[in-house]
């Protein structure tokens, strides 16, 4: 192609582009908009009242989208859980029995001398078909917000429960009413334990009850990047909430 021919082709392309942008069909943009609005008005006017109402509703929903109108419904709050009621939490069947405070639980929670240990008594059975880690269960139990639990870094040495920085419960077996010294590390299928979930508690705390909340656990067969497949994942969504009476003397500690 010669230079002149190239220039002609470029000029033609430029005219076509400008025409598409500004005056196709010889009409200005405001004129086209007015025409479209008249067409829409005519179309809407010919609809039935019911169709108009439905269209108005759909339009209102779409207009509310930037403000969250199309967002999913918030998850329902945790269901109330009664003392002694068995519920399924991931691979576990959990029954909460009550709560108490102990001066110490050696080998389980190393509380400061001025503090105590809040213990939630429960029965747990692994109803899944795999051995599970104790931390899978203890991680699903939130520290009671009204239980005076010492936050991480304020005297406790708990592992973190999650990104919220809350203290994770220690999990220990109860035998004949006494808390064993040492954590329950693995729970095999079909085995039932009486356990405590324990947190360091401020020594000044006083109360008649504590609220215990259980998170939902969901099975992850394969995760998106393949690093942690086949595990129970804490949804970080409370599914059960129970108010447990604090009963003095509910538990004792195995003396060292």
């Amino acid at each position, binding site marked *: 192609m010669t230079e002149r021919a190239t220039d002609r082709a470029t000029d033609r392309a430029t005219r076509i582009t400008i025409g598409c942008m500004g005056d196709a069909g010889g009409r200005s943009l405001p004129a086209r908009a007015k025409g479209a609005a008249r067409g829409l008005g005519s179309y809407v006017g010919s609809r039935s009242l019911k169709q108009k109402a439905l269209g108005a509703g759909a339009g209102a929903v779409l207009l509310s989208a930037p403000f969250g109108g199309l967002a999913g419904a918030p998850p329902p709050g945790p269901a109330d859980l009664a003392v002694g009621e068995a519920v399924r939490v991931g691979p576990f069947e959990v029954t909460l029995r009550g709560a108490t405070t102990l001066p110490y639980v050696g080998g389980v929670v190393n509380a400061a001398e001025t503090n105590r240990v809040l213990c939630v008594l429960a029965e747990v059975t692994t109803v899944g078909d795999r*051995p599970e880690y104790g931390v899978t269960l203890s991680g699903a139990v939130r520290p009671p917000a009204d239980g005076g639990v010492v936050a991480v870094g304020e005297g406790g040495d708990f592992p973190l429960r999650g990104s919220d920085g809350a203290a994770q419960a220690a999990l220990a077996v109860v*035998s004949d009413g006494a808390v064993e010294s040492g954590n329950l*590390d693995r729970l095999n*299928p*079909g085995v*039932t334990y009486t356990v405590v979930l324990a947190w360091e508690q401020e020594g000044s705390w006083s109360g008649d009850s504590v609220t215990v909340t259980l998170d939902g656990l969901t099975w992850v067969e394969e995760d998106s990047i393949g690093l942690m497949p086949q595990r129970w994942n804490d949804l970080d969504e409370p599914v059960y909430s129970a108010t447990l009476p604090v009963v003095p003397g509910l538990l004792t500690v195995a003396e*060292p």
Partner: protein
Amino acid sequence: MSPLGRGTAVAAAVIAAMALGRVVTETWPVNDVTTAPFVRSGAVAEPVRTEYATITVDGVRAARTLVTGGLSEPPAATAGGVFLVADVTVRATRRTENIDGLYLVDAEGLRHEGTARGGCATGMFAPAGVDWHAMACFDVAPDVLEGAYLVVARGGGDLDGYYQARDEVVHVDLALTADRAAQLAASTETYATWLPGPEPYDTRPWSPEREAP
């Protein structure tokens, strides 16, 4: 032969060659790689030799409670079900071996892991050339004992055997017949736990009167 006939014959020959190739590759897959472990089977008190270690299950016991190190303390651990205790000796061949897989498989194929409660071993680092003794304790439901066998391996049993791929894995028949399983399930014994080490440990039932060695 006409040009059309030759073309048809060539096309038929090409299709036949492709079909033959398909049959060959499907009959003898060239891309399949086995990930299954190499199982070495054995029995109690029978050394099982692998490329990396000689592994022996010296005995099997059952306990209701465990005490740590034979000290005169209250029970360190009480079973939710029953503690099946396996005394395992590993003699690594050339280098220190990390025995991370140490678990039971019941008759239905379910895995049951050991616990560290009371001081039991859930695995061991076995140095080369030394008999390394470990006491593994499995808190299991009594009804899973019958027919269960012990697995000893370098890789753990998680992820459907992913960590045991193409490695030697020892399966030890614990001779848990119905009678033996019932006997073990009814155990009320207490045993002392011992950390893994080169010295054989006391496997007799623990009693408060006996002094700690």
